[in-house]
């Protein structure tokens, strides 16, 4: 591949578009991590084989794509240009898919079925889950082969870079500032302001600043960044290039979790393709601008998502945060000004330059024309997971309500259960109850309600979720992940955990709630980094909104949701038909009974492993 100049981008695009147009249709097989685990690579190979055997490989092309965001229904296949959406595709469906494709018809059984009407919906755009979304960061998901740079260029990749190369540095920064974009990693700091600080500091000190992409997506229940990198790695590279040009950096780093092997692989392929084309390296697109990107694998430490800890880890040290200020934009990697932005933030940058700051600022909530702090512009990607009908990735304009996301896009709560809470903001966020469903989803409203935007995990919980257990879960997570450097975070989390553990075991005491509140306050005031400062949020928000549930545990020694093992028991009700499956599956032989007679669980033997509940087809197992 030859190194290209700015003008060549257009030629590559036209050539690739022309190539694609020669095919009657493209079968886009989702090859994100979720669909891969459901067998999508095998599906892709079999499709190619079948098309070849039938001499159709010149008419139809098979394209492996990144994550479509509808992972629970995988493997997913979308037939373009019509956007026909197939879910749960199996190898044996392939001949029929091709037959129907030739006839211009659909395979009904593979189509999405609307949960309200029960009608089959052939086209992706008409499925509510996709219809309400507005794609900026995820604009290329499922449309391109992420391992083919020409596919990305055909969709406009690197055009904004070419534009940035013509602009002066301050103008790029001003454009990003005027867009109002705030950091998508959780903090919500205005991106343009951060860039300006780094730019000015490096000019004053006459040093070369650095660029870092934070792909250490550690929040449990969040996979936006993984999906962006898997689906469209070039947008991240392009965003970083634009940032580098803006502040005058020549070296950049992507810090990515080792738990995301596919994302890392795709990113490295994308980097080497960009290098070959002269989109990275020396004299990019024939200009005098040089920039290189290196990748660093995380080694399994949540705190490394914190920017000062991340910098420490990139330098080959343990990922322990340090006191701020100075912020990394003033003194970061190797003591030089460093911008750290999250994957999703970088993915937005090329679009801001392409469509203009005004276009971006008009999307979302609030008026950011005076200051980015006055609102939340643009879109946000959320991973909508937990007890919800349509789990997956959604990109929505800021400012729509939780209700719209959970019910209109997510399809509500499955299995006839009731909504109980939604957790946003990762372990440092909070749980919001049903009374807050009309809350606008933007940086400031969520923080005001006692949660936070965070990186975009949105975990929906039904009435079988115990909120005390959830608080204990997060505190246990943070207790393990606290680096231990500062005392309030290290000791405060252990103290909170011990109290919560007691409460969930039925050993709670009067005054426990107040004691936890006091510890939480100390932690938020005295901890060194954001991990400790916000660590008590899950406790405080659950106490605030679900105090009665704490009291039920402490005073009545009951777990109303039927989760806390020490407070529940399993029994068999009259629905039992005596099918014997539970007694066969019970690992400790705690269930006895004759065929066709009601069974009995021996509470002395029962280890509450839940197998009987899982295998019973007659709703005969009660958990109380």
């Amino acid at each position, binding site marked *: 591949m030859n190194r290209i100049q700015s003008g060549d981008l257009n030629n590559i695009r036209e050539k690739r578009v022309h190539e694609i147009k020669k095919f009657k249709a493209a079968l886009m097989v989702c090859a994100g*991590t*979720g669909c*891969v*685990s*459901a067998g999508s690579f095998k599906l892709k190979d079999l499709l190619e084989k079948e098309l070849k055997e039938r001499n159709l490989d010149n008419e139809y092309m098979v394209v492996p794509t990144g994550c479509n965001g*509808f*992972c*629970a229904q*995988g493997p997913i296949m979308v037939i373009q240009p019509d956007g026909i959406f197939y879910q749960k595709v199996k190898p044996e469906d392939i001949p029929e898919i091709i037959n129907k494709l030739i006839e211009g018809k659909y395979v009904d059984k593979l189509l999405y079925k609307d949960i309200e009407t029960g009608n089959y919906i052939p086209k992706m755009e008409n499925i509510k889950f996709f219809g309400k979304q507005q794609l900026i960061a995820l604009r290329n998901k499922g449309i391109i082969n992420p391992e083919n740079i020409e596919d990305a260029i055909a969709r406009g990749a690197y055009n904004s870079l070419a534009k940035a190369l013509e602009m002066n540095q301050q103008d790029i920064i001003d454009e990003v500032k005027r867009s109002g974009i705030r950091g998508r990693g959780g903090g919500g700091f205005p991106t343009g302001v951060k860039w300006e600080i780094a730019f000015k500091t490096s000019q004053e000190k006459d040093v070369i600043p650095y660029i870092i992409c934070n792909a250490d*997506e*550690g*929040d*449990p*229940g*969040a*996979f936006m960044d*993984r999906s962006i990198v898997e689906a469209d790695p070039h947008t991240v590279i392009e965003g970083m290039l634009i940032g580098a040009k803006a502040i005058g950096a020549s070296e950049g780093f992507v810090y990515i*979790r*080792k*738990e*995301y092997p596919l994302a890392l692989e795709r990113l490295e392929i994308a980097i080497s393709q960009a290098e070959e084309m002269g989109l990275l390296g020396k004299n990019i697109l024939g200009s005098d601008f040089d920039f290189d990107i290196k990748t*660093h*694998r995380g*080694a*399994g*430490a*949540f705190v490394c998502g914190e920017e000062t800890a991340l910098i420490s*880890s*990139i*330098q*080959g*040290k*343990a*990922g*322990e945060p340090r006191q701020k200020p100075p912020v990394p934009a003033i003194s970061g990697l190797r003591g030089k000004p460093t911008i750290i932005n999250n994957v999703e933030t970088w993915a937005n940058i090329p679009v801001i330059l392409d469509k203009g700051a005004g276009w971006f600022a008009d999307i979302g909530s609030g008026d950011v024309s005076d200051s980015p702090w006055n609102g939340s512009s643009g879109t946000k990607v959320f*991973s909508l*997971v*937990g*007890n919800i009908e349509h*789990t*997956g990735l959604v990109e929505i304009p800021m400012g729509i309500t939780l209700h719209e996301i959970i019910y209109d896009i997510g399809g509500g709560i499955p299995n006839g259960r009731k909504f109980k809470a939604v*957790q946003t903001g990762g*372990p440092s966020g909070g749980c919001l109850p049903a009374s807050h469903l009309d809350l606008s989803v933007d940086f400031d409203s969520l923080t005001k309600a006692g949660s936070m935007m965070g990186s975009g*995990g949105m*975990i929906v919980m039904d009435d079988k*979720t115990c909120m005390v257990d*959830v608080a204990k*879960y*997060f505190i246990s*997570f943070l207790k393990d*992940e606290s*680096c231990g450097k500062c005392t309030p975070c290290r000791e405060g989390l252990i103290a909170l955990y011990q109290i919560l553990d007691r409460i969930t075991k039925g050993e709670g005491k009067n005054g426990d709630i107040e004691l936890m509140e006091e510890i939480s306050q100390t932690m938020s005031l005295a901890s060194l980094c954001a991990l400790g400062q916000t660590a008590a949020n899950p406790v405080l928000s659950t106490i605030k909104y679900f105090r009665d549930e704490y009291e039920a545990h402490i005073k009545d020694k009951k777990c109303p949701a039927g989760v806390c093992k020490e407070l529940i028991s399993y029994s068999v009700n009259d629905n039992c038909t005596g099918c014997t499956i539970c007694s066969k*599956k019970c*690992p400790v032989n705690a269930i006895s009974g004759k065929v066709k007679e009601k069974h009995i669980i021996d509470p002395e033997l029962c*280890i509450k*492993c*839940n*197998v009987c509940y*899982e*295998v019973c087809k007659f709703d005969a197992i009660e958990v109380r």
Partner: protein
Amino acid sequence: MEKVNQIIQKWNTDPDFVIEMMQDIQDEFRCIPREALEEVTLKTKVPLARLYHIVTFYKSFSLTPRGKYEIQVCIGTACHVKGAPLILDSFTRELAIQIGETTSDGLFSLEGVRCLGCCSLAPVITIGDNLYGDVKVADVPKLLAKYKEGNNE
């Protein structure tokens, strides 16, 4: 030791990449042997104490050998809400080991992992390189039996 040196050279003996070196060492030996640490110190001039700090700080590393099949039970939030603690209990019961331990035959080791980023498939586990979604407590004995028989496709 030749392997260790190859790994060190792969990363250009650059002290900034000692974490990457040790990840490769971990993959190669299923643990970080003391001799390997000493070799990294010798070549990169990074003090042994700092390497030890790194090895004990990050979850990826283990000073004792891990099993042939590493079982990771995702205990991210979505998986937690969908019953991951019960799945984890089931593995500890079936394998008779706790988190962080390896079975005496060296076949399995068990880890709880903080979110594999496949939350739509919750609860999720990985065994070796294979990922399984929507796992039920009742599936655990069957899954383990498959690997014990060496039939892990």
